[in-house]
């Protein structure tokens, strides 16, 4: 007995068993890990069909690129994160589904994102400021961060006299505006009722100014001004509204007014980085498995028992 206790192997095995006991008694501990809850609101207005992204040496539309990047992002998000999806067009957005846990509902979210189409738009205008306000208003009560993905192309352009007032939601909403598109203006594709492309929007196809309410200019400077019949003058408006580029300064301004962050979408990496913003994360207590540590200790001790020793007695030749 005495000799058994003197043997280091006995002690190794005993300690290993104690380690296993610890393993079964304390298998996990509570750990704070950041989890994310996003509601992606995707702009599906026509300007999102403009093709100014490159993917595999092929020009792809903004919408396609957004969908592709979001689907890749879905794979990169840690489990326990939640993702909801909504669409924006006209002056408001609609929610397709409330945030779902990404690991258990991966296929469902992935399919739904893949099916997003510009033809789902229920109306054709694009008033981003109002849409953003209504979205923030709609999701104010939820604890999800609004990720508003748009190119900033207002159609028709906003009259500076009638700007959206974000003071009611400022500071309460958390989220981010993601700008998509290139900085160079490109034409917007035009489709027929069957979804086939029939060229591009031309100068005469789109309104180049809003003719709602009163002009922001001094009446004396408007040619052909008539307070009742021609508040915007008699001249036809001209502009480049048929071309579309990412309106970064405008979106940055909206972001500042509504208290959201702004970033530009260039790829998965930059989106993933931007979304890991600690402001958008919520610390959640998650049970983490810590059985590895005692198991590793036990393994080490067990190996020590069977470690080959250098031969003590040499054979004499």
């Amino acid at each position, binding site marked *: 007995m005495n000799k058994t206790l003197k043997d280091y192997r006995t002690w190794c095995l005993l300690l290993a068993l104690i380690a296993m006991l610890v393993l079964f008694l304390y298998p996990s501990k509570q750990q704070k890990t950041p989890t994310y809850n996003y509601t992606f609101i995707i702009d599906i207005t026509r300007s999102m069909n403009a093709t100014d992204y490159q993917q595999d040496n092929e020009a792809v539309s903004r919408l396609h690129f957004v969908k592709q990047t979001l689907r890749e992002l879905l794979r990169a998000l840690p489990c326990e994160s939640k993702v909801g999806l909504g669409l924006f067009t006209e002056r408001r957005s609609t929610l397709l589904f409330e945030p779902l846990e990404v690991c258990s509902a991966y296929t469902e979210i992935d399919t739904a994102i893949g099916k997003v189409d510009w033809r789902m738009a*229920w109306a054709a205008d694009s008033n981003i400021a109002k849409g953003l306000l209504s979205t923030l208003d709609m999701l104010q009560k939820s604890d999800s961060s609004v990720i508003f993905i748009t190119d900033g192309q207002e159609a028709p352009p906003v009259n500076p006299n009638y700007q959206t007032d974000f003071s009611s939601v400022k500071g309460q909403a958390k989220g981010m505006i993601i700008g998509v598109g290139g900085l160079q203006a490109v034409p917007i594709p035009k489709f027929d009722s069957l979804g086939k492309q029939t060229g591009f929007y031309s100068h005469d196809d789109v309104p180049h100014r809003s003719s709602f309410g009163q002009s922001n200019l001094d009446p004396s400077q408007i040619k052909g001004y008539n307070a009742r019949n021609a508040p915007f003058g008699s001249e036809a408006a001209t502009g480049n509204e048929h071309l579309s580029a990412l309106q970064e300064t405008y979106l940055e301004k909206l972001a500042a007014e509504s208290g959201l962050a702004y970033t530009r979408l260039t790829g998965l990496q930059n989106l993933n980085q931007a979304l890991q913003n600690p402001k958008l994360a919520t610390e959640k207590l998650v049970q983490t498995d810590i059985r590895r540590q005692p198991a590793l200790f036990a393994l080490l001790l067990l190996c020590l028992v069977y470690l080959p020793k250098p031969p003590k007695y040499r054979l004499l030749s």
Partner: protein
Amino acid sequence: MNWAVNTPWALTGLLLALLPLLNSGMRTSPAPWTALIPADTLSAFVVCCLRLCAMAAIAGLVLGIAGLHRTEQSRERIGHGAHIVLLLDRSSSMDNTFAGRAPNGSDESKATAARRLLTEFVNQRQTDLIGVAEYSTSPLFVMPLTENKNAVQAAIAATATPALGFTHVSKGLGMAISFFEQQPVTGSRIVLLVSDGAAAIDHDSELKLREWFRKQQVRLYWIFLRTAGSPGIFDQPEDSRDDNAGAMPELYLHKFFQGLGSPYQAYEAESPDALKQAIADINRLENLPMHYVERIPRQDLSTTCYSVAALLLLVLLGVKFFEVKR
């Protein structure tokens, strides 16, 4: 049996299981000449067993550390149920009550009533695959056919956001039928249309819908949430001049559905109770035998590995005390 580990590189530790082959793990006692010791089969057997125990213990620990598990399995089973696509009307009028007013404290809106009852319905249909599509001016793809009831509930809950534009039912139906493409035909296939209005369907769409309904063998249930005072689906026109799809879209849509050639049932609900009745009917009727896939969630096997290793460690330690004392 699909086995997998979380950290594959940790499996290199399995090489450690070879250590007991090099060292018996027992105290050695000097003997003048080993050849003098007679061969003992029992001893050799015991030593061999002990080495195997040690190897298994090391392997168990390594596998536990690597996170051995059985991956998610799916098993095909035969049960009762259906593939159901919920086609929900998101037109603005759904936000009014059955009396046609904006909802106040006592009355709930048609959308709220539909949401509440559909949530219950989905909870009762455990083996079904359920998908969600919505339509207003244009169809919205919301949720593919899935057995994940949480996902369906999340989609139904999202209809709490304000409704959209007009009623364009033919495009919505087209989208709902498209859910069944590339799905095996098993059990019954149902489109459950929940709407509070109808619209005339143009001739081209009529032809296409007829063909698709026949091809995909879809059964149609229409729950018409009738607002008080508005024309119903079963009303006959009082004046023959009103007998057209423009003036009575509900009646004409109903007639079109009847002529589809596929099973069709209409319910006219004028209150949340009637809606509840209609849903209960469908719940009772649609229970044809069907193949469905049961998911067996991933099973963690590291606990088993650790338990086996701990047991073997106990054996090894116990045996230590039986070693020859000299």
